[in-house]
């Protein structure tokens, strides 16, 4: 028995202007699709979006590419479409931490940092950075495997980056929820997925 829907991951990268999202969402709707997840941002004038959508099973990747490219409008090279499978992958286990990195901008910071995170099995879920003159600020949301000792991780990061004139901190995400949301702290702690070893 074949599934009646097909799920696709769609990404678009193009110069930013008003109305791109309107074009993309209209194209998806016109093909009978339903958007299940979306992440969009603009980086230095470039619009980028990734979305997951479910379509009737007879809709093809080529049809999606053509329709989205025409609706944006942008070239077909700006649109990438992939089968997403029918099962939503489970997020990596472990609590989420917010990694902040501030200091002097220099080439190779991200290469060094991401190599360390990958080696430890730490998943990057979101990343942002901003350069302001000679200074750089990175903010990353990461998932730390429960087996890792957070104090050791913090020590390692300091040893890795402080010689480059960078201040690095890794703090559990609940701190940022507590200071910026109004949800009860008790509920915040009770609904926390997984636990970490500290």
């Amino acid at each position: 028995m074949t599934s009646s829907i097909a799920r696709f991951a769609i990404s678009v990268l193009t110069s930013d202007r008003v109305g791109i999202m309107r074009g993309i969402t209209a194209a998806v709707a016109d093909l009978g699709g339903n958007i299940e997840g979306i992440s969009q941002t603009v980086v230095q004038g470039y619009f980028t979006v990734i979305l997951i959508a479910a379509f009737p099973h007879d809709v093809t990747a080529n049809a999606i590419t053509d329709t989205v490219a025409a609706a944006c409008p942008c070239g077909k090279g700006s649109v990438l479409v992939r089968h997403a499978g029918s099962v939503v992958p489970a997020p990596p286990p472990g609590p989420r931490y917010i990694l902040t990195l501030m200091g002097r901008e220099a080439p190779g910071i991200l290469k060094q940092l991401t190599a360390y995170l990958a080696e430890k099995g730490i998943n990057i879920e979101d990343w942002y950075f901003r350069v302001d003159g000679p200074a750089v600020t990175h903010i990353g949301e990461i998932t730390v495997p429960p087996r890792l000792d957070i104090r050791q991780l913090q020590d390692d990061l300091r040893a890795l980056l402080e010689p480059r004139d960078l201040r690095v901190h890794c703090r559990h995400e609940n701190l940022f929820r507590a200071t910026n949301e109004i949800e009860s702290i008790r509920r915040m702690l009770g609904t926390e997925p997984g636990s970490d070893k500290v």
Partner: protein
Amino acid sequence: MYRTDNVLETVRMLQEENLDVRTVTMGINLTDCADRNMDTVTGAVHAKITRKARNLVRICDEVSSRYGIPIINKRLAISPASVLLEGHGPREAVRLAQALDAAAAAIQVDLIGGYTALVQKGITSGERVLIESLPRALSLTERLCASVNIASTRAGINADGVLMVAEAIVRLAMATRERHGFGAAKLVVFANSAEDNPFMAGAYLGAGEPECVINVGVSGPGVVKRAVERLVSSCPGCTLDEIAETVKHTAFRVTRTGELIGREVAERLGVPFGVLDLSLAPTPRVGDSVGEIYQAMGIARIGAPGTTAAVALLNDAVKKGGAFASASVGGLSGAFIPVMEDHALAAAVAEGSLTLAKLEAMTAVCSVGLDMILVPGDTEAVTLAGIILDEAAIGVVNRKTTAVRIIPVPGAKPGDHVNFGGLFGSGVVMAITAPGGGADFARHGGHIPAPIQSLGN
């Protein structure tokens, strides 16, 4: 995904504005350790404290690492020790004090409070023994802190108790004269004491509290000061209600941080979480001062006209922000004005703009009272009693906690500089107006009846 400006604001509070958890204080009920044999009492006290709190420091350190927030002090607050002294004498009292001190050292907490007597309406034999033992108990121990509640809105003021405590302060200062009377910095005299206050020297586990509980004191004067500075800098014409609103929003964030830490520590220890005390408690460090907040508001010289209103504005806004942030706000929750522990207040005293009389006015609207005040070493006990009576009257009539932590510095005169070091800070010995002028009043003793406000039922 988190808003980057929110993330950076939180990081800035921690990294640049000295936000910390000032204390995680475990309350422990020790009343079941009472016995006619003091050996049995001290053994039971040591066993119970080390059993209940053996993991306190380790777990605080773990939670501190997880959130990247310093937890400055780990402390204990026991049920009033006077209960354990019923039927005992002064010598046994000192042994109990030393046993408490040793237990605190064994589990490496910074301080232990609760060498306490509650005498607002009358004095039992155990409470009398405790008060009389204070000079030796506090001079022979390091970590032990003591408090005596001598008044409440319901009971009035126990003037006999005030005289006894004043005598004890003078003797305690003399017993620690080689340290400029430092022992008196570990004793606080209360009106309307808070049963769940986590801050020292006045923390104890009061009646109605659980068998064991975690109370948290969170501070952050540096965060509030910077928030006010940013507002005034970006909007020089801002109004006082806009300043109050800014303080309130900042207090919300600080409170939430403290509750997060407190609840997680309590959960890991397997004990109930009690209260979050949001008190702007300064340290001698620059940037961690309550006095600097008043300066940021526009009080260039602390003690000048307007200062009391600034204290009232701050204290109220802190309470409102805290109350919105958490249903567990308790303790003292407001602005402290411990003169020696706040470099800006200490400087104002040194330059003469902040006097004892002005401080007393400020205590009518701040969260506690006359705190860490140095006075001449030849100050008589009756004069100290008069100061305590005045402060208690403010608390009793206004239905609020007030306190006196006053240090007669042996051999010192007004204007002399004294340095206790560390978090206790330094300061200048203050002059007392007409010392002894109210001696006959204080010597009457007896009881000042409860005010009409107490008849609320």
